[in-house]
């Protein structure tokens, strides 16, 4: 807010002083897992892209780039053909996995814009997990009922099989031990954090309850009509201690997209300009896929979001610090990992995430750092965090359902606990 903004690093690297802006947002309906059966995941991707382009006041004829992040089934090359892009000039998929890559995909698109490689890049994510089984059928787990009925019976005598990917060889060190899904892996991270710092379940519950209250104002939110009290939180069933069901994000069907273009172009378009002030992505030494596949990282990284380096580069690039941020959209696959992100991005000291969240600062209205004003992945929808970028744009335009008065800066983060990324958005032109 008050801090004088200097020209962001990304812009300094631009070949012609171009500045990336977010000019359009698009969303399909969001439902619970399996709720969308009348459109394919791929059709939803198209729907979200068209909506974002239309929101910007552009035509698909203007689009020359597409970007997403790892584990996307909806390939940009097919989308470019099916959408009829006149010329595909840029297509990228960030290596950062699952929820870690949403902000990186936007950053990559912004770099393409700022280097002049493309003029209008659409970043997209579509998830219809009811159409594709997700949990319990990870790599190295052939025993699941999703195997075709005609598949040969499992051999009676197990033997060591060849891994078909690096990931499969790595999760061989976790899956045979019943670490089937993220709640189990990240429950262990939070248990360590509790041990080191005294973090409590009630502090995690505060994140769930606060963001559910935000969702109540958001007509798109899957859980908007389901209020949650702290008692409700404690009564939800235990999944993997210390995580209850309400510590875990939703599993959703839906898609969203954002349009990245130059500030010059954005100035002539339908919507208020939102500047991508800075972006950063990465992981610390030895982090691998994060705590999901590796427990051998240093203690300081294990019980953390793994985002301190990303945060350092992000703040340097933005010329801002945590105290300059008016509203935050923090990736929330699990309540506890929100606390770790708040620590890594410097809103509080390491180990203080719990008390910080419990102090009420994250609530809209009135909190000093209103967070996940759309309800987040815990209560709006789980679209791998690209919906957090969409909400960041809404805040910078001034039309969120939990609008922070006078908000000029927004931090958006991607998933803690995997190689990750983050953005600082700013209201208006640079």
């Amino acid at each position, binding site marked *: 807010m008050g801090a004088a903004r200097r020209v962001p690093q990304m812009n300094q690297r631009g070949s012609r002083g171009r500045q990336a802006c977010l000019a359009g947002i698009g969303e399909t309906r969001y439902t619970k897992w399996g709720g969308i059966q009348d459109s394919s995941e791929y059709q939803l991707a198209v729907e979200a892209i068209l909506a974002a382009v239309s929101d910007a006041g552009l035509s698909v004829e203007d689009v020359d780039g597409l970007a997403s992040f790892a584990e996307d089934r909806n390939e940009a090359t097919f989308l470019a053909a099916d959408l009829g892009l006149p010329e595909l000039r840029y297509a990228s998929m960030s290596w950062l996995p699952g929820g870690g890559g949403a902000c990186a995909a936007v950053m990559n698109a912004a770099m393409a814009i700022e280097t002049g490689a493309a003029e209008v890049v659409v970043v997209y994510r579509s998830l219809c997990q009811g159409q594709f089984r997700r949990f319990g059928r990870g790599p190295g787990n052939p025993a699941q009922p999703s195997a075709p009925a005609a598949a040969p019976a499992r051999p009676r005598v197990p033997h060591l099989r060849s891994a078909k990917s690096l990931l499969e060889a790595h999760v061989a060190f976790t899956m045979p031990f019943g670490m089937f899904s993220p709640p189990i892996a990240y429950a262990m991270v939070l248990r360590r954090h509790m041990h080191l710092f005294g973090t409590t379940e009630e502090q995690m519950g505060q994140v769930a309850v606060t963001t559910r209250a935000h969702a109540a104002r958001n007509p798109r939110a899957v859980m908007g009509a389901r209020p949650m009290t702290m008692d409700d939180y404690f009564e939800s069933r235990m999944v*993997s201690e210390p995580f209850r069901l309400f510590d875990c994000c939703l599993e959703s069907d839906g898609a969203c997209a954002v349009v990245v273009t130059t500030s010059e172009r954005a100035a002539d378009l339908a919507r208020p300009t939102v500047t991508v002030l800075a972006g950063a992505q990465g992981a610390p030494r030895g982090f691998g896929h994060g705590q999901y596949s590796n427990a051998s990282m240093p203690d300081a990284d294990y019980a953390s979001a793994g985002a301190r380096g990303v945060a350092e580069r992000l703040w340097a690039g933005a010329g801002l610090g945590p105290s300059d941020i008016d509203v935050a959209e923090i990736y929330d696959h699990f309540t506890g990992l929100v606390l770790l992100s708040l620590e890594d991005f410097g809103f509080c000291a390491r180990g203080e995430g719990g008390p910080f969240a419990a102090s009420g600062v994250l609530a809209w209205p009135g909190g000093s750092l209103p967070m996940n004003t759309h309800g987040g992945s815990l209560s709006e929808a789980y679209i791998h965090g690209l919906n957090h970028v969409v909400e960041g744009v809404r805040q910078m335009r001034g039309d969120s359902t939990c609008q922070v008065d006078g908000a000029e800066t927004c931090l958006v983060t991607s998933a803690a606990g995997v190689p990750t990324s983050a953005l600082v958005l700013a209201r208006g032109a640079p």
Partner: protein
Amino acid sequence: MTERWFPDEMPYPSASAETSGFWEAAADHRLVVQTCDDCGRTRHPPGPVCPSCRSTRAHWAELPGTGSVYTYTVVRQAFIPALSDRIPYIVVAVDLDEANGVRLVSNLVDADHSQVEIGMRVEVAWEDMGPDLSVPRFRPSTVLSVESPTRSPTQSPTVR
């Protein structure tokens, strides 16, 4: 036949060129850690190059199979149907003795879920999934109050 703690439907490990040595040793009930021939540092999961000195030469150093619980979770949801009679079960990360900071994700078996705590001493318990496939699980240590001779630097209990 040795003891079984988990059902046949548990996923079996699969291995790459880099990781097969671990599982081959496991079949012989030997717990090993990949160790750089040149600088002596350990690494896990195994990989093709030492992340410290970038040597590509490594060997499998045998470990005593003891360690302490670094962190854990008590899993109360059956993510595969075959585990519905087996919950709750305990997943642990074990700080392995003499492994210079390497931790293994595994299970604590032969223990009640209320017993597990960070720092508790454990020892390997092999579960034979088949004649040539065994996985290392851990049980509470049968040796009382023995301090590991080589504590890794990351075991330091204080971070603040």
